[in-house]
């Protein structure tokens, strides 16, 4: 039985540069990279060395803690660089791509005819497994677990988010096959949350429980949806996965290959022609960005402006991302910029700006912190953007104090860092809420597991 979820609290951040629904095929990137730090909690063990030739789908490394979890090359080519940082930590593995991909053959299979174990083994062998993440803790799922349910949010409510119903319009069959495979992984249900205001092919997907979700960001966050559909209790395990990655799994079963291509949105106020681009996980996007972004003082983000990764240095598409946002850097001074009622180019939930008078205005926000970090002072602002039945400030304080019992009591299992992105955005004291929650979750993994 599906139920409607209506979310009242939250904040819609309207930014300039929404991607137009046109797909351009980018010229093939010459270099691809896998950045292990984007896959939180995984310590990579390499199975390749510089100079090795790989096909798309050949394993590059596996997780030290869960050896069956393999990470595959998204393209065929040659390993050209393995960069290490302090303590020999692997920063990235770069692959020079062949002109056309040759795929490792995994064989065409029908997931509905396979056993749960076979589906799992197939996903693990092909490198599709890491797309499945676990809540609580927001880490790669442990194949040994039996999840209570699997949740998929078919839409993102984040600023300038890519519309996956558009990106996957030609791959409905692949998506459905992916769902069929995922269904084998849980004895519970597969929940698919759809944007209640639209009717897309997601509404026609079978074998799932469909939930209509209405409301402002973070309505599209899967964590928020879980909270309203079937909240996570202590000891529970549920799995989540992004829609485009469901399609990647579908391609594996339908076509027998690991095809990690994604249709991403290139958006943001600094992009000349914001639109969709077909590319692949790990692709070097610097060529596309040079072509589309004339300004140099910009920040390139893999993901959305609230939770994305800064890829200014090396512009590789993130492991889980279907969006690249380019916004201006805010490294400038502003004379008496704190003065109330001036500076209405900035967005604020506080009415010491006039920006609330123009709710439909699209902003070109930059990366200025708009102040300095301070102790917690203002109360009540975080609650305005936290739709879950959770006290955000109290949970943050308990987390800062490493008070595990209190964190449990206040609902740490129900949250992921992304659920605190808006809390971080509105914080007058510029509290780094996402980082605090991430550290708290890591502490829980260590202490509770």
């Amino acid at each position, binding site marked *: 039985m599906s139920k409607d979820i209506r979310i009242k609290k939250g904040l819609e951040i309207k*930014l300039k540069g929404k991607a137009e629904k046109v797909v351009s095929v980018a010229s093939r990137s010459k270099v691809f990279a896998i950045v292990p730090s984007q896959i939180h909690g995984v310590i990579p063990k390499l199975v390749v060395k510089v100079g090795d030739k790989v096909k798309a789908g050949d394993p590059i490394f596996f997780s030290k803690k869960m050896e069956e979890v393999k990470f595959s090359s998204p393209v065929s080519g040659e390993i050209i660089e393995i960069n290490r940082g302090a303590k020999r930590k692997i920063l990235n593995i770069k692959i020079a791509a062949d002109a056309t991909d040759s795929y490792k053959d995994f064989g065409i299979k029908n997931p509905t005819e396979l056993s749960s174990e076979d589906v799992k083994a197939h996903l693990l062998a092909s490198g599709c497994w890491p797309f499945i993440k676990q809540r609580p803790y927001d880490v790669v799922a442990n194949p040994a677990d039996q999840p209570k349910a699997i949740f998929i949010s078919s839409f993102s409510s984040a*600023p300038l988010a890519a519309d996956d119903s558009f990106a996957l319009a030609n791959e409905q069959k692949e998506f459905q096959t992916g769902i069929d495979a995922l269904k084998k992984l849980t004895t519970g249900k597969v929940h698919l949350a759809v944007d209640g205001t639209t009717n897309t092919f997601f509404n026609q997907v079978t074998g799932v429980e469909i939930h209509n979700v209405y409301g402002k960001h973070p309505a599209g966050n899967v964590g928020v949806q879980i909270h309203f559909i079937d*909240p996570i*209790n*202590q000891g*529970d395990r549920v799995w989540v996965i992004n829609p485009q990655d469901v399609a990647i799994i579908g391609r594996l079963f339908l076509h027998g290959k690991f095809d990690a291509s994604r249709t991403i949105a290139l958006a943001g106020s600094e992009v000349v022609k914001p639109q969709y681009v077909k590319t692949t996980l790990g692709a070097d996007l610097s060529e596309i960005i040079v072509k589309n972004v004339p300004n140099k003082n910009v920040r390139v983000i893999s993901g959305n*402006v*609230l*939770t*994305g990764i*800064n890829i200014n240095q090396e512009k590789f598409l993130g492991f889980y991302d279907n969006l690249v*946002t380019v*916004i201006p850097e*805010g*490294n400038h*001074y*502003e*004379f*008496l*910029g*704190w*003065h*109330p009622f001036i*500076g209405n180019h*900035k*967005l*604020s*939930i*506080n*009415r*010491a*700006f006039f920006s609330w008078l123009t709710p439909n205005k699209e902003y070109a*926000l930059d*990366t*200025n*912190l*708009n*102040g*300095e970090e*301070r*102790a917690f*002072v*203002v*109360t*009540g*602002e975080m*609650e305005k953007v936290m739709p879950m039945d959770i*006290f955000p400030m*109290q949970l943050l304080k308990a987390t800062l104090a490493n008070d595990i019992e209190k964190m449990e009591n*206040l609902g740490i299992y129900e949250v992921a860092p992304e659920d605190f*992105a808006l809390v971080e*955005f*509105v*914080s*007058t*004291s*510029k509290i*780094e809420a*996402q*980082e605090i929650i991430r550290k708290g979750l890591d502490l829980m993994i260590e202490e509770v597991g």
Partner: protein
Amino acid sequence: MNFLRKQLDKIKPNFDKGGKFEKYAPVYFAFDTFLFVPNHTTKKGAHVRDGNDLKRLMYVVVLALLPALFFGMWNVGYQHYSQLPNPTNDPNFVFPFMDVFMFGALKVIPMVIVSYVVGLGIEFLFAISRGHEVNEGYLVTGMLIPLIMPVDLPLWMLAISVVFAVVIGKEVFGGTGMNIMNPALIARAFAFFSYAPYMSGDKVWVADASTIDGVSGETILGTLASNNPINYSVFDTFMGYVPGSIGETSVLMILIGAALLIYTGVASWRIMLAGVVGASVMGLLFNAWGVNALMQFPWWEHLLVGGFAFGIVFMATDPVTAAQTNTGKWIYGFLIGIFAIMIRVFNGAYPEGIMMAILLMNVFSPTIDHYVVQGNINRRKKRLAKNLKTA
């Protein structure tokens, strides 16, 4: 502005790590960030941030206090001159507005200056010794303190009260955001208990009342406490044409400030509303009981006299010391209202109860929050228990 920026950038290296005046970096940065919102960009987490910051927030509160401040200046002069004998033969003679205002301004401005210089001086010292930035909290506290003092308080007493409030009330806890009780009220409580003759009675509320014969001025609450009839109209008390602490008398000006605070969302309307409701309930109860002048005093007039309005709008709503949960704010505000009127009525020696009520509830606000948060925890635990049963 570029010139100013260049000059600042020129001297900045002296304050950076390894610079000549590295130790005094907090002082430099306090001025630099006051003049210019810094060029800091987001390093981790959300790449864009809300435009609001603590400086803007605190400055909104200072703006909200300005009507009460300017009216206070005028009223100090008005209370003084209205008691002087008419210097002319013209029975319709009124002292010129500017004379009245300037008299008050010359009394009040030194107090504001002393409050800011002493308070910010201590804040800077602590910032230097601890190596952290100067917090903006004192911008508000420094304005609040003179507004809740009687005009004739000697400046050195004011200075000592400020020292006590900032050091004991705030810095020992770790500075803005960490304190338990409202620092401005601590200053007033300190002055009240240390220099009682200068803080209560019928000689302190009107400028020079103690030195000029025939000039006296009791507050309305003082009059009521000694069971005397009051000779001010409701209109006077609403407009603020009555003796009292500098900023507290005019309900109209306070309401203007309250409107700004509620409109901008800077202060909690929940606390203000709950406080008014609490005070009204208590006032009604006393009206029904009614054995002395204070009890018989109409409940709604309780809201207009004394420091109630000022306290509930500007002091009870301090986010650091108030309850932090929304439900907690209702309870906290309501109890402040109740206690303010209760102390006012029962404690004849000291009829102004709002200060004590707020300080008391400051202490109890974590307890209130604890029980509110516990409700959330219990819901979660119940869900877990139910889940275990069905599993």
